[in-house]
């Protein structure tokens, strides 16, 4: 699959190369057909994929998230544009009979973890606070780029959440939860800060539909695995691994996504049909009233794929050699007489005679005693013993 994607992508870029050459020679029809590449109104794609569950028996939630990760990566979103949050380590868990793998299908058929994975937030880092900070971009200044959602008002963002939830909340790490109101407010803040163009929200949890009920910001499309009052169910129990491998909704979504390729014309209406009640047991729900476009015109790849920024130019650009060879001036050559040496790793005598850290100055004890004696002496000299009665 990776081969296929790469092939297509390079193919895409090449096509533009051809296009450019033709436009230069006056074949204008090609130029018009370029429009379809920019129809969706976004120029970049981001994905925030979150598994909120800890502990081995929640293996399936990690597998859910990783299967979406696999799909978006396969369809062209680079690791730098994916914020992957996994609340626990399943792949190298001591209970995993096959370390460094997470399987989505029985009999170890599909390893969704792969050999090239970058987890941005893991373990204890996956908290409600961090999740909301990533969405709203209010992170400490030294946070590395890989842990940030650096989207803008031309970004299409896919947000996928999975974990244990209830009516109106989703649990994080079994110890805290995010409510649907908090989530809706975070999206509103994103909208006001112009952090997205369109947003696709998918949640696979019990009573998932309750999580998108309170959304009120524009351009959000939401999907959930179950209606309020319904449980989302797991799928694919595996005897060798000893747990359920996936949840039903995400499992069928993965099956659906595996058939998508970067150029496919499948649209959101097809995604809504994924996992009918006969397969899911729960009723998947979706909400499109906040979304401005017709879901039938929204391609799956508008969110799961990636747009490469391509600018057409007809001007010739002269590329100068940007790399300047550094002048080899042996500054350190002859005039420098200092010879470096390695430090002694355990300089015993040096350590023993190391001066203790200077403490705050404190008068010596003898000095204080002497001072008091002096005071008493002066006192008795002045008043004498018989005047003591005046004092007491």
């Amino acid at each position, binding site marked *: 699959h990776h081969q296929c994607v790469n092939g297509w992508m390079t193919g895409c870029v090449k096509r533009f190369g051809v296009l450019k050459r033709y436009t230069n020679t006056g074949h204008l029809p090609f130029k018009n057909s370029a429009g379809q590449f920019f129809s969706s109104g976004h120029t970049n794609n981001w994905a925030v994929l979150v598994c909120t569950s800890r502990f081995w028996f929640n293996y399936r939630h990690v597998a859910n998230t990783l299967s979406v990760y696999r799909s978006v990566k396969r369809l062209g979103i680079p690791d730098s544009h994916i914020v992957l949050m996994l609340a626990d380590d399943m792949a190298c868990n001591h209970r995993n009979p096959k370390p460094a793998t997470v399987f989505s299908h029985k009999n170890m058929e599909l390893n969704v973890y792969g050999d090239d994975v970058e987890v941005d937030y893991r373990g204890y880092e996956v908290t409600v606070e961090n999740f909301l900070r990533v969405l709203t971009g209010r992170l400490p200044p030294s946070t590395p780029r890989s842990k940030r959602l650096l989207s803008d008002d031309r970004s299409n963002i896919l947000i996928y959440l999975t974990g244990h939830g209830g009516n109106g909340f989703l649990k994080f790490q079994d110890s805290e939860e995010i409510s649907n109101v908090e989530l809706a407010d975070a999206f509103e803040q994103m909208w006001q800060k112009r952090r997205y163009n369109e947003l696709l929200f998918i949640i696979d949890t019990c009573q998932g539909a309750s999580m998108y009920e309170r959304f009120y910001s524009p351009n959000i499309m939401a999907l959930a695995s179950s209606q309020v009052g319904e449980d989302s169910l797991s799928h694919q129990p595996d005897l060798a691994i000893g747990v359920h491998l996936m949840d039903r909704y995400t499992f069928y979504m993965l099956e659906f996504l595996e058939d998508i390729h970067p150029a496919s014309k499948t649209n959101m209406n097809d995604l809504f049909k994924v996992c009918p009640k006969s397969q899911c047991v729960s009723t998947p729900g979706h909400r499109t009233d906040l979304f401005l476009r017709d879901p039938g015109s929204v391609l799956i790849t508008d969110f799961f794929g990636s747009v490469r920024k391509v600018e057409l130019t007809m001007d010739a650009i002269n590329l100068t050699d940007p790399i300047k060879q550094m002048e080899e001036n042996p500054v350190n050559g002859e005039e420098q007489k200092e010879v470096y040496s390695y430090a002694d*790793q355990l300089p015993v005598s040096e350590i*023993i005679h190391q001066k203790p850290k200077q403490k705050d100055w404190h008068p010596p004890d003898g000095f204080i005693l002497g001072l008091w004696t002096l005071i008493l002496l002066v006192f008795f000299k002045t008043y004498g013993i018989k005047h003591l009665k005046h004092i007491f």
Partner: protein
Amino acid sequence: MTPYGSSSLAGSTHDALTRKSTTASRKMAAHRCSCSSWLFILFSLSVFVVADIHETTPVNDHHGGADHNAQTAEQTADQPAVEGRRWEATEVKEAATVDAAADTQGTSAPETVVPSSVPQPKDDFQEELVIRPLHSGDIYASFQFRTLWDTDFMRENKVSHYRLFPKSLGQVISKFSVRELHISFTQGYWRTMQWGQPFIPSPPGAELWVWFQDSVTDVDATWKELTNVLSGIFCASLNFIDSTNTVQPSASFKPLGIGNVTDHSFLRYATLPREIVCTENLTPWKKLLPCGSKAGLAVLLKSEKLFHSSFHSQAVHIRSVCQDWQCKTTSWELRQTVNSVFDLHNSGQAKREWSLFKMFSRTLTEACPLASSSKLYIDITDNPQGEQFELSPATSLLSQAVVLGDRRTFSVYDLTQETTFGSVRSLNLLIRWKSNEGEMLRPLLHAERYVAGYGLQTGEIHTLMYNNHPYRSFPVLLLDSVPWYLRLYIHTLSVTSKGKDNKPSYIHYEPSKDRVKPHLLEMLIQLPPNSVTEVTVQFERALLKWTEYPPDPNHGFYVGSSVISSLVPSTVAMDTNSTRERPLFSSFFPCKEESSYFVRIYTEPLLVNLPTPDFSMPYNVICLTCTVVAVGYGSLYNLLTRSFQIEEPNPGLAKRIANVIRKMRGVPPL
């Protein structure tokens, strides 16, 4: 290597003889021998001048019949020919060119020949894999990749053009003024008593220690930023490193690179014993290599196999090293290592047989094209005649190295040579065991640690350090960093060996501050020969605030490994010339004296239970319900069932005393 050019100067007679009589291929050996004899004369060292690793000295002892004094050039040159084995010249290229240079230049001054005749490349990449079959039946595989770059990250105009050195790390070095950076991620615990010493030690979890340049003004802030950046680079939770787990050792962790500045205020050390290590850490690590995981030895680093092992450790070490033997200029060294111990029985095969393919599910087909040297070493020290295991394909190239106080013999496969891969164009090394016998040399130093005591209030940390040397004592420097929620009772600290008090010659203790900084305890202890030294200290567990508990508090809390740095007496002379070209695995710790070698070992991390409230929902529901029942229903029931009567007023004190006296007298009370 000074004496190469001077063989004619040194001009001993047998030297000249061999030069005439031997063939061109053996000429080099002769040169080396002449060099050793020259060294012999010049420095009047003991017989074992052999510190030179590629020395052609007495392994021939194993082959029987060889004279113990067979140090003469002719014999050493002849022996390998008889055996059909060849001693490796690791400085193949250098030695060859130097030889040529020496031949052409004749009797030029020895000091200038070597460095001037070899044009130094601006950057250089070497890769190396050492495989050591362990006596426990496990296999120890150690990968080392070294990138050297003669540049200065600290100069005014920033370095912008990178070739072999990874840009992401180069920028980190210049932005944060890093002088030295060591980071390791480890899964599993290194079992010294079964496996011996590793080439590069590391504690379980993540470890990071950094020396900053003395130009850094706010070290703590820089350190915090650096950990954040590194957490992004290595996909790890290094951002959890803060003041509560960072210490500033006062004597441990001297810089491994060059430089004389040892002001420990520029050093920071932190461990995260709980950090998990998995593919997401290996992926960015592999991306730092010039060839990635596409070619060379790194193709073997497949996570599915690598993490299916008893021990796995990956590390990045950045330091500055000497550019040449004169050591007037420095270059930056990036050393990436992976150390792994594979359990044979883990893979479910009863037959004691092992191959590259079985271990890594890959075979080698080429060296990394960017590498100047790419070698595979198999440790055959315990297997000189092939009595323990059998290697196939066999190699005739042998090499010797002094590493960790021991002289080891290795079979060498040079991956840059076409012939290594044979006609099938792939190298799948196979080791077949013949016998189980053989005793491992007992490591001279090892340590263990555990928590004693019961209950959730107090406890005691025991650290045991074993000196297995029969007659020599040596110093160790113990470093302990204990989180603040274990309050150490430092007055209970005791160090005993052989039942007697062993007074440390240096103690550095920094008490903790709640929620701010951990305890730091450093002690310099002399371990008596053949003894166990026990360090005990009692502690009390602190109560955390309820928001400070992690999501799984019942798992317990980790205390990072103790670090034990030591100078262990060596059985052979160590090589103190740190600028000499050596295999990577033997050139990590610089060595100052010949009689001992520096070693650092780590104890187990501790897992301590803290008093933990029950955070679960059923528990809270039960508590609440019980309270409601007890207060509401209980008082109502009490009211309904109790019979009320008027109680007599309390008798006064005098009356009570009187009554007591009356009772004793046997008179009825008032």
